[in-house]
């Protein structure tokens, strides 16, 4: 994954804050934000996850003219192999870690460069063989300064997780 241009915008921060039911006005009101310690609207802690919006190749977004695996007339828009189905598309999320060098704010234009990390396997009690893979994304600002380092771990399961 590479995100070449992730413009941080106040309206996007507002929508993101709403979606995590966070009514801290620092995410909504620039006048209020001036009275806070950061002195500006900032992004909520997990906001850089929304860089997916600016990844042209992001696989979990329907694209014009391309088949989509969600339901329409049929339960899935594409034929899929029956094995390894536990993750649906792109596996499940096992871990997420962030290190904040500073907090993004409206006006920032971030880039995100992702590098693969470790991979490992484990036998899962509820889902068969688990294959974990780590990726590290460095978000840098318009001046090339590191803003957020994100480390994600994804897992593919042999079958859906038993409930």
């Amino acid at each position, binding site marked *: 994954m590479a995100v070449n241009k992730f413009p941080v915008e106040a309206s*996007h921060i507002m*929508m*993101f804050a*709403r*979606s*995590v*039911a*966070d009514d*801290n006005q*620092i995410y909504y009101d620039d006048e209020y934000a001036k009275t*806070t*310690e*950061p002195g500006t609207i*900032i992004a*909520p*802690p*997990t906001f850089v*996850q*929304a860089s*997916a*919006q600016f990844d042209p190749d*992001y696989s*979990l*977004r*329907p694209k014009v003219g391309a088949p989509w*695996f*969600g*339901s329409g007339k049929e*339960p*899935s828009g594409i034929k*899929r192999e029956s094995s390894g*189905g*536990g993750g*649906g*598309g*792109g596996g*499940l*999320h*096992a*871990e*997420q*870690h*962030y*290190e*904040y060098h500073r*907090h993004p704010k409206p006006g920032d234009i971030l880039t995100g460069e992702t590098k693969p990390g470790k991979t490992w396997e484990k036998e899962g009690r509820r889902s068969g063989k688990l294959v974990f893979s780590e990726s590290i994304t460095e978000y840098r600002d318009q001046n090339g300064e590191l803003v957020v380092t994100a*480390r994600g771990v994804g897992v593919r399961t042999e*079958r*859906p*997780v038993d*409930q």
Partner: protein
Amino acid sequence: MALKASELKVGDTYSECLVEDLKRTQIVQYAGASGDYNPLHTDEVFTTQVAKYPSVFAHGMLSMGMTGRMVTNYVGDGRLKKFGVRFTNQVWPGDTLNATATVEEITEEDGETVVNLKVETTNQDGATVISGYACARVDA
């Protein structure tokens, strides 16, 4: 308001209810804001018939995002230095989640006073859905 090291002690806790009776609409809202449109989160037909789960379930990142709200409400705006979690159980529509931060250590790091917190989010059955940590700058 920022935390003060002099007023913190190991074992202090802060808790919030993150959501009561999680609605599918909130999961849709998160899909739209984050850009993660995996049908497992919003498409009941695909999720039950193709992926074979009992229903759609929340993005792990929605639970982490709501847990982050508890953390920033506790440590104050712009104070967070690190935040990481493991997703230990799925979160389903109808779940009620509570999150707790527990002070583990107050220390110096890079010339700043910081608090290290253990972070845990549980559902209405007491099962842990998120297990993690946060580190935040505090006043001396």
